[in-house]
Structures are given as structure tokens and as C-alpha cells.
């Protein structure tokens, strides 16, 4: 592994488990080397399900999902327009509550709404043309990028992606 990487992290939000898993499987099958991928869905009864291929855990870091789900992954601007003449979308892009925790389940549980799902994928920037086109179903997505040592780059890319996601949501 190189000492310095340029890493991209893609995060996506979904309204159904099926759509998130479809994209998750697509990135696993796309042929690119992934540093990690995690998909978390939350059923209407609150039950979480998690699938992940997370090399970071093996590398002693906190884990891709644990970092990625710490802040507002899923805040789609669903109410951006209005039918009745009022600013219904004003609050649509707010970040969900921040609940610092090291556990993926707790963090995802706090940030993914009932019935929703989220995807985080980390990969080398060079593989972006292979990875990004296969993520076709996210209702909201952002891609962050950072350079540095491997773990530094991952964290930086996640933070960048999260910021872009939040900006997109707020703009909505």
C-alpha cells in the first residue's frame, strides 16, 4: 500500500433497502478495488441490517461505516418544492441529530430514518470512473476526496463527502 493516497468516498441515501443493496452489489461487482463498502438499512419496525466489506477495520481504524454514519448521511431534500405556496422545503436539508458513538449500529440507527438506507464506498480516486457510474439508484449522493496517509485520506474524504451532502440537502 502506498504511503500517500488520493481516496474518494461516495455516500448515497436511499428510500428503500432494495435500492441500496442493488447499488452495493453493483459496486462490489464493478471490478474496482474498494477500500471498503458498507450498506445499512433500517426497516419500518426499526430493525437495522448491515452489510459491509470494510478493510479499514482490519487496518485498525475505526471503520468506514462508524465514521461515515456519524453525521447526516441521509437528508434528502424531498420537500424542496411546494404545492401550496409556502416554503415547505425550508427545513428539508437539515442535518439529522449528531450522536457521537463508535458503534456503527447506533450511529446508523440515529441517522437513517425508518424505511431508509445508506451506502458508503471508499476507493482510489483512480477508480472513480469505474465505481461512480454503477451507483445509479441513490436519491442523494455525494463524493468526497482527500489526500494523505491511507487512514487520513479516508477520514478526509468521508468528511468532504458529508459536507457536500449536507450542502446539497441545505440547498434543497
Amino acid at each position, binding site marked *: 500500500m502506498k504511503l500517500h493516497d488520493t481516496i474518494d468516498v461516495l455516500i448515497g441515501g436511499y428510500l428503500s433497502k432494495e435500492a441500496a443493496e442493488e447499488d452495493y452489489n453493483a459496486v462490489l461487482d464493478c471490478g474496482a478495488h474498494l477500500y471498503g463498502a458498507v450498506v445499512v438499512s433500517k426497516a419500518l419496525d426499526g430493525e437495522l441490517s448491515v452489510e459491509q466489506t470494510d478493510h479499514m477495520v482490519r487496518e485498525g481504524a475505526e471503520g468506514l461505516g462508524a465514521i461515515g454514519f456519524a453525521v447526516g448521511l441521509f437528508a434528502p431534500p424531498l420537500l424542496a418544492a411546494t404545492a*401550496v405556496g409556502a416554503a415547505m422545503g425550508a427545513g*428539508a436539508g437539515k442535518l439529522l441529530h449528531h450522536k457521537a458513538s463508535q458503534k456503527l449500529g447506533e450511529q446508523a440507527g440515529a441517522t437513517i*430514518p425508518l424505511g431508509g438506507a445508506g451506502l458508503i464506498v471508499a476507493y482510489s480516486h483512480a477508480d472513480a470512473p469505474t465505481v461512480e457510474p454503477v451507483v445509479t439508484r441513490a436519491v442523494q449522493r455525494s463524493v468526497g476526496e482527500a489526500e494523505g496517509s491511507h487512514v487520513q485520506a479516508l477520514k478526509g474524504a468521508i468528511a468532504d463527502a458529508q459536507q457536500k451532502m449536507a450542502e446539497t440537502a441545505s440547498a434543497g
Partner: protein
Amino acid sequence: MSQPDRSKLPIRRQPFRGVANRTLDGSRPDWDALGHTDAPDGAPNVLVVLIDDAGFGNAGTFGGPIETPNYTKIAEGGVRYNRFHVTALCSPTRAALLTGRNSHAVGFGSVGEFSTGFAGYTAFVPDDCVPVPRILRDNGYSTAAFGKWHLTPDGQQGPAGPFDRWPVGWGFEYFYGFLGGGASQWDPCLAENQKIIGTPEAFYDREDPYYLPDAMADKTIEWLHALRAADAKKPFFAYFSTGCSHAPHHVSAEWAAKYKGKFDQGWDKLREETFARQQALGVIPADAELTPRDDAFAAWDDVPEKLKTYYARQMEVYAGFSENADHNVGRVIDAIDELGELDNTLVLWIWGDNGASMEGTITGSFNELTMQNGIPLTDEMQLQLAERYGGIEAWGNEMMDPHYSAAWAWAGNTPFKWGKQVGSHLGGTRNPLVVHWPERITENGALRTHFTHVIDVAPTILDVAGIPMPTHIDGIEQQPMHGVTFADSLTDADAPERHTQQYFETIGNRSMYKDGWWLSMKTARIPWVLTPEAIKPYAPGVWDPDDDPTELYYLPDDFTQAKDLAAAHPEKVKELKELFWAEAEKYNVLPLLAPLAAFFGMVPPLPDVAKYEFRGDVENVLSGMIPRIYNHSYTISAELVIPPGGAEGVIVAEADHLGGFSLFVDNGKLTHTYSMMGVFVFRQQAEEPLPEGEVTVRMEFAADAAKPATGGEVTLFVNDRPVADGRMDHTVPIRFSGYAGMDIGRDNGGVVDLSYADRKPFTFTGTIKKVIFDVNPHASADEEHELHTAAHHGHAAHALSA
């Protein structure tokens, strides 16, 4: 017995014609005094069938892709009219049909949910325009209505009535159906006569679940059998008004499966195929032109490949739903035949009341109310939400309230432009009519091309029954019907065309027909777009209707409105424009766009009720009558008695998982679930179980601000102690449901929180003394006014798409 004077209703009793001495000695009874008013000799039974939200090009009988064997059978034994017209909106067509008068003139310029303070838009019929079922009833007919009503104002659909605005008040002796504009076919909240009876018990039978279209036919047949058991001769007037094909498009998978793959070619190709069949059948002229697609609809070729299956499925379900309606109407007709009375039954079967509905917007929706609540979902989002509730194969079952894409509706209106709500074009105003009456009609399968309109139906019924239009009813002088009989055209293709002039107006889209010429004046607004930007150009002082573009057609040469002649005939444009204004004034169409008045500050006085109390046995409060909790802070509190060992069940629940709220107890814990139209679902639950004995629980919603769709914080209290909290980022701004009701102590029909679906209706096992809604805990006067205005915006939005 001599014929009574039918010019004034009720018919006065005959003078006593016997002899009444001091004793029976020499006395002679008058047996006629015991009778009731008989219908005129030979008066036929009448069955009026009205299919909902369907287009000219839907039914196979008129070249559409949907198999309609019963409609075709009746057409082949009767006559079909290919120039029959409706009003381009649900309630107005129904009001016109049942009164024989222009809809605005009887208060129905818009839908039944929406009363506003202009004479043409009150949503209740004036006493001098008494409907035809009342006239028939008073003239010796038995009368009954089944299915969709949509002619009772939204806030008057409870035990307080007033019932003159319910079907019974219109002259129907029996009613079984729903009062609103649409209903679930699986778990409707029904009315029977003057009572809301809620969701039928059969809904809970998983082996043989309830299905409204089947039940409507069952009830109609049952009524016919009972009628004949009681009276072998009395003619009947039955109004069979299907919920189909209005959203939600609900039908079992078997019916939809018949159309698997039949719409993979898309809407553009479907229109071409339908058009070719229409020409082959001769229901449109050989020289007719297929009108082009408006830019408001996407080309099928531009639909992403990954979404084509999603879109095609929408139409498969719609088609199966519609064919099922044909099947159930066929059952009713078979029952009449089995009674030996089909020959002398006048069947008037109208396939659609306003063209096919474009209210599903471009994307279609897993939940039709998302559009009315202004939630702009992309087609990918809609698909994912459909996946959340079972996937597209479940499209049509009770887990969704689906509506198809506007483009499918446009295809259903082949060969015309536009559809529902567009009173300026034939897509919204022309629907098939088939008339069957073997005793008189012998020219089987013939086509009639007379210009006819839904207001002609009532005069035609009276004509064939030999009943005069009464001059007075209940002592009130009656306005004449505006329609004219077309009875002679039933048997004579060369009968004169009597309906030579007609205005049309729906939400500003308007037209004027006279002697073959048709002037179209459509507003620029796309019918399904209700954004502030779309409404703004119609503000008072801004909009000049005479500046709207005009199109002119000469229909005898141009069946489909394909050749705009406005530029070549400016004098005709001017003449028809002036005629429209005169007709509009005459029939209370003015002011134009009265249904949008709420958007421009014209709202009714503020209601003065802020607290609502419900005792423990109240259920089936219809969705338009629940406490106004939208867009601001509110509290729901309940006084309970928890028995030893605890209790569980629903304290109060409104609607279902596709939009609604439920305050309930599960595993002893107080829980609140709020479904923001099935898109977002929020839940808060206490950690500790409720104590035994007398307990007060409360749910407080503290809104971020008094504004539409506001987010806010929820806190649950038990005996004034907070036990749980949580945030709801978005709330429902307008309406949870178009049909589902609110219940105390149970969650009737589909449930709000699916975690207790297997225990539905999840009846509360303790005692509920009362539930109190406080909808105005902290609002200032200004906030109240703003919220009231917003509520009426929502009311109008719902009305515009009901």
C-alpha cells in the same frame, strides 16, 4: 286510478272517493287511498353506470387496450355515442348528471370537498334545482345509489349532517358507498344511508378479503332481489358509480397479471395502437387525425430504461382495475337479466366522468396523496418507496395507494389532447356513452354521433319514463333543467341534434361550443402543477382571461381537435368568446378560478373551536373532519384506566401507514408513530410501561414554527411526567388521507404502525374515558390566521386534485 298531477311534488293524495257513513252500513272503502304513487305505465327501470377517471380511449369497446367484454356486449345490443360530453372534473359531472343542470348553476363548479362563498362553488345544490332521483322517487320509482358519491361537502360527512347533502337528501332511498372523491378498494371507510359504517369487517378476513367493487355489485344485486321480493312491478332507478378507475388503483394481482407486458411499448405507441383500433371500429371517423403529444409529457423513448418496468406496471394495474369494473357491472346487468327485466331496463353506461386523470403527475406515485401534499418525488424516489412497501408487484394491493403517470392518462384519452381538469379540450370533456334498452332499441350496435352532454341524461330519463319536469317541489318553484332529451336518437339515427350550444369550465380551462364550432381557452398552468410560481399569474388584477391563447376547431370536420382555425376565423373566435362570458354569467361560473380564491387571501372566517373531545367509542371520523392538527403545535391527551396486568392497543389513530398518526400502547409502553405520507416515519416510545389504574397520557408536538410541513419536537408524557421524546423533521401539511378515518380505541382498516398490523385493529384493552385534541396551544392570532390561510390553500389543493 286516474293519473296523478305530477307537475308538483310530492304528489298530493287523491281525494277520498268512497263513502264513510256513521257506521259501516252503506259505507264503501276507497282502496286507491291505500296505494302509493305509481310510475307512469311502461316506465322502464333505469340503471346509470358511471366509471371514474377514465378516458375515451381506455375501454376496448371504444378501441382502448382494456378488455371490456360486458361494455361491448351492451354496446352491441344497444347504441354507442361517440360525441358525449362531461365537465372535466368529478363532482361537477356527477352534479350535472343527477340534476340535469349545468354544474356551476347547482353549486358544483368544483369538487364536493371544496365549498367557497360563490354561488357556483358552494358544493350544495339549491332547493330550486332538485335532483332527478328525488323526482323519480316521488313519481313511483325505487331509488338507490352504490359506490362513489363525491357530492357532500368535506366537513359535513359526519353524524351531524346536514343530510340533505347526502345521497338520501338527493332522493336515493338506499345508499352504500363512500362520500368522498376516492377510496381504497380494500379498506374503504363506507357510508350506508345516513351513517358512516367504516371499514367492513370482511377486511380482516385474510382468506376472503373485502373488495369494494365486488361488494358494490353484491349490494346492488341484493337490493334488486329485495325490491322484487317486496314489489314485483315497481320500477327502479339504480345509480352504480364505481370507485374505479380513480386512484388509488387497487386490484388483485390476478387482474393486473392479465396485462403483464401489454404496455411495455409505452404511451406513445399505445396511442397509435388505440387510434388504429378506434378507426377500425368506426367509433371515430376515418379521416380523424391523432393529436400530437404536448411537451408536458415525456416521450416514452426518453424514459430511462431502468424505469420503464416501473412505468409499465402502473398501467398494467390500471387496466386490470378497469377490467374488473367491467366485470362487476356485468354481474349487475346479468342479475337484472336473470330477473327477466333487462328488456325494459334503460342502461346508460358512461365510461369516465372527466377523461383519464393526470393527477399522478409525470412520475406516478406509490401514494396519490404525496402529490396533494406537495411532496416532489422523482420517479426513482417513487420506485424506491414502492419497493419499501412491497415492490412494484405489490402496486395495487393494500400497501400502496397508487396513481399512474399523467402520460398514461393522456394515452387513455386517445385521440384527444389533455385530460381531467382541462375543460378546454376533448381529452377532459368527451367520454364514451353506451345506451341499452332492448324493448325500444333495435338497431343493435349502431353508432350515434349526436352532440350530447351529461346534463342531457336526466331529461332523457324523465322523457322515456313519461314523467314531466315538475314545476314545484316542496312548494319551491324549480329551475328548468338545462339539458335536453336525446331519447329519440336512441331509436333514430337521423333524430335532430338538439344540444347545439354548451359552455365548459374547469379551474379556468374553458371552452364554448356552438353549432359544431369549439373555442378552446386553456390557461397556461399544467393541471398537475400547483407551485406558487404556477399560481401567481392568476392573481386578482394580474390575470386577464381574454389574454389566454385561443384555439378554434370545427368538430364536424375535425373530430379530434387537430386543426386550429383561430387565425382563419377571428370573427368566430370573438363571437364564441362573448357567448362564453354570457353563459358564464348566466350559470354562475363567475368568478373564474373561484377554487383558487384561498390562494389569494379569500378564506372563510376562522373556526372558533380549538379543543376537540372524543369519547372512547367514537370511530370512523372521516379524514376531512379530524381536528386541524396540521402545520403547528398541538397536543393529544387521553384519560385512561389501565387494568391490573396492563393494557395494550390503540388510543387514537388517524388513517394508515401511508399517512397518519397513532398514539398507542405496545408491550405496556406508550408509543407515538407518525407517518409523513409513508415517505418519512417517526416513532417515539416510552422506556417504562404504563402504571395501572387511572392514567393520563399526553403527546405534545412543539412545532419549530407555525408553517406548512413544519418539523418539531415530540414529547410523550405519562401523568405529566415526560417519558419519551424525539424529533419529526417533516409533518404532513395538508391531509393524511383521502378516505381513511380516525378512530378512538382502535385503528380501523389499514393501520398506521405496521408493527401491530398482525393485531389490527389493535383494540385498546383498557378503558379510554376520553381523548382531547388541543390544536391551538400556543398560537398567536397572526399565526392562527396564517395557518388558517395555509389550511385553505391545502384544502384547495386537495380539491383541485380530488
